[in-house]
């Protein structure tokens, strides 16, 4: 193992990670002080928290030694559960980093022709994943428990815990490395032979993965879930000693309870497990590391063009071709599939909260109304805003095809707008069904919620498309940009204002339901909302066409 190579590779990985998140690939300048400020901040904060807890221990709890004993026991429980907790959190956060990178077009791995071994590469990749949030949290936790242990006299336990925490985070990162190789390499290779169904398998598979991941993520990171998890870890660790992931915790437990032989055995087992994970990652990298994009076969046979339903709906062949192309893009490009996750997550969060709430407890009417509005309006609003923003930028480097083709601005806007509305309609239908099934709103409320969803969708899609034309970013390296951040921000502000204006006729109605102000009919509010939305949509659509003309006229590439 050449450690210099490992260090260099870690630097490359960190820098590439920043480049991917940043806005420019070339002329990248980084402030070294800023790079380390978070670690310094975590250290200072940890020391402060530890000192505060120590002060509390020496003053408030000193009035009764029993309090201090209880505090010591609590601290020991925390020490015991920390390795497993840190492992879970590290897996979640390193996986999130990995998901963020899944849309990146170019490999950030060291070129295979350089004299670097797979062990060096895997170690660097594993360690680099720990930098950032996982390491910041470890620095914070470690400094806090060391300082507080000075007051409680548990310095040795704290030191051993820190070692265990470091080992568990390494294990977590190795797990993510294994996942990374499987995700990018192995799964791709399996897909290679699955023919036309490939794209759907990939689409549904990716969505299923994201949804599963977010369910786990929300369970672990939500307050109740985390506490339950800590309690579970603390109590159940000994009973599931045969699971390798708790061996570190078991080693600590044995050490703290004066069982040196058992502590040694579990430490050795943990070490063995960490090495096993690492060498599994190395092996997988060796097998699948030199990645070739799989040649996915979608169709076979003689070419036989078909008219298609879009032609019958009144779209010109060029417009229909653009819509079909975009539909394929959104079901085949990983970075675009991610967009479908957004509304699903928005549905999942309130659903999980409602399922998690104690049974028999009915929510107040206003809260229920808010939930209905949230599940009907929010996903479709987010989706139409986001789709509108990226519909032009998603063309990426292939935008030359649009520029050099005889496509008018009107056709471009028409096809892109139809696509947004079509996808959003599917989302409205799905969220509506979920909303009705979960919250059982009245017939009137359902009709109004659906109507307002449509109104928001039409208006916000047109606004975002108009702004997306101006802010489109066609750069695809290191990852597809699609929209410039400043235009994205502007669009969100404009859309928020537009949404408030469109929904504003319901404000007096909401007041009237709680006895404030005169009584207003719900349908009257809808009619006013329709008028506002129609005007907004019309104006924004015309602006989108004007912007498209500008885009096509100044097609500098």
């Amino acid at each position: 193992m050449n450690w210099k190579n490992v260090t260099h590779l870690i630097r490359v990985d960190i820098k590439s990670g920043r480049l991917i998140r940043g806005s420019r690939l070339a002329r990248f300048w980084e402030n070294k002080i800023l790079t380390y400020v978070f670690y310094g901040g975590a250290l200072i904060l940890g020391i402060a928290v530890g000192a505060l807890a120590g002060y509390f221990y020496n003053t408030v709890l000193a009035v009764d030694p029993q309090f201090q004993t209880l505090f010591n026991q609590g601290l020991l429980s925390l020490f015991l559960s920390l390795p497993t907790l840190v492992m879970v959190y590290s897996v979640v956060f390193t996986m999130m980093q990995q998901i963020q990178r899944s849309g990146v077009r170019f490999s950030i791995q060291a070129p295979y022709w350089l004299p670097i071994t797979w062990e060096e590469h895997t170690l660097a990749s594993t360690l680099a994943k720990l930098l950032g949030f996982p390491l910041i949290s470890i620095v914070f936790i470690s400094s806090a428990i060391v300082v507080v242990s000075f007051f409680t006299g548990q310095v040795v336990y704290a030191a051993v815990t820190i070692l265990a925490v470091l080992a568990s985070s390494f294990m977590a990162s190795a797990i993510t490395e294994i996942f990374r190789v499987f995700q990018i390499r192995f799964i791709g290779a399996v897909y290679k032979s699955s023919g036309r169904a490939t794209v759907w398998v990939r689409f549904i598979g990716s969505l299923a993965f994201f949804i599963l991941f977010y369910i786990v993520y929300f369970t672990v990171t939500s307050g109740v879930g985390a506490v339950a998890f800590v309690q579970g870890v603390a109590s159940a660790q000994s009973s599931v000693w045969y699971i390798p992931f708790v061996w570190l915790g078991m080693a600590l437990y044995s050490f703290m309870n004066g069982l040196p032989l058992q502590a040694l055995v579990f430490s050795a087992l943990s070490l063995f497990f960490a090495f096993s994970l690492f060498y599994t990652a190395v092996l997988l990298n060796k097998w699948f590391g030199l990645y070739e994009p799989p040649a996915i076969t979608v169709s076979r046979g003689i070419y036989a063009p078909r008219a298609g339903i879009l032609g019958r709906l009144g779209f010109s062949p060029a417009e229909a071709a653009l819509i079909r192309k975009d539909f394929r893009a959104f079901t085949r490009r990983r970075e675009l599939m991610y967009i479908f996750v957004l509304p699903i997550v928005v549905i999942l969060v309130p659903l999980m909260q409602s399922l998690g709430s104690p049974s028999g407890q009915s929510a107040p009417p206003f809260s229920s109304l808010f939930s209905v509005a949230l599940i009907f309006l929010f996903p479709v609003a987010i989706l139409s805003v986001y789709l509108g923003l990226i519909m032009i930028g998603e063309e990426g480097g292939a935008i030359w095809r649009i520029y050099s083709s005889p496509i008018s601005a009107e056709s471009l806007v028409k096809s892109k707008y139809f696509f947004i509305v079509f996808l959003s309609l599917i989302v409205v239908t799905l969220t509506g069904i979920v909303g009705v099934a979960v919250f059982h709103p009245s017939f009137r409320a359902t009709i109004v919620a659906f109507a307002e969803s449509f109104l928001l969708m039409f208006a916000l899609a047109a606004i975002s498309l108009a702004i997306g034309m101006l802010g489109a970013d066609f750069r695809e390296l290191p990852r597809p940009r699609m929209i410039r951040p400043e235009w994205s921000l502007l669009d969100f502000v404009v859309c928020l204002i537009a949404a408030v204006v469109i929904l504003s006729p319901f404000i007096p109605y909401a007041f009237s339901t709680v006895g404030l102000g005169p009584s207003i009919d719900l349908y009257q509010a809808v009619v006013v909302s329709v008028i506002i939305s129609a005007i907004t949509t019309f104006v924004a659509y015309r602006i989108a066409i004007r912007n498209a003309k500008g885009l096509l006229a100044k097609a500098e590439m």
Partner: protein
Amino acid sequence: MALRFSSAVSLKGVAKRFDRIVAVDNIDLEIKTGEIFGLLGPNGSGKSTTLKMLLGLVPLDAGAAEVLGIDVAKDPVGVKRNVGYVPESPRLYEFLTGLEYLDFISDIYGLTAEEKKLRVNEYLKALELEGREGDMISGYSQGMKQKVALISAFLHKPKLLILDEPLNGLDPKSARIVKDLLHELKSQGVTTLMSTHVLAIAEAICDRIAIMYQGRVLALGSMDELRQRASLPSSGLEDIFLKLTGAGDIRAVVDELLR
């Protein structure tokens, strides 16, 4: 409706700047209908910018450009309808299959179902993409992608082909097929304007050649006219090119590198 013009391309006093860099500096150019015209020049000489301006992809700072009798500034969509274009590095929609991409292009140019079926299958067979047409483009080699880009320029039977490095990455057989195809299209009255760094190709297939340097047309004419201009009566295009563009003493550079 068939389009008939004596000049397929006409540039008068055309100029383009990018900030402080003068990409194209007041050039005049006439390309006759049915001609295969080569645009040569060192890197950054303004070739690609000139080609893009002809298609309305880059607005002109000064001058006028007419393509097939259509003013580029006034009716860029009209120009695009009659031109087949292949850029220097054609980025394709990699999430589509080769077939889906060509179907997309056919629809964009409004080909009928019969035309699509006939032409797509013909070109796929000619350029040996048969059997791989159902694969996603992301799995194609660079040469295969170039073939798809070329087919997409030929599909709608344009009157003018604007090709920037058209033979990039092609295997010898496919390159030969494309060259023969360009000759065949010339006999049918199709004009080709191509930019290339492969001087042997330009020498072999171009009727006339323009050598650009620092945004200007340095020399223009047939091979014989260029030889006269460079005072190199029996030399090939490479020597003429190097002399006209002032490439200097190549031997001295090589010696310096080997020291």
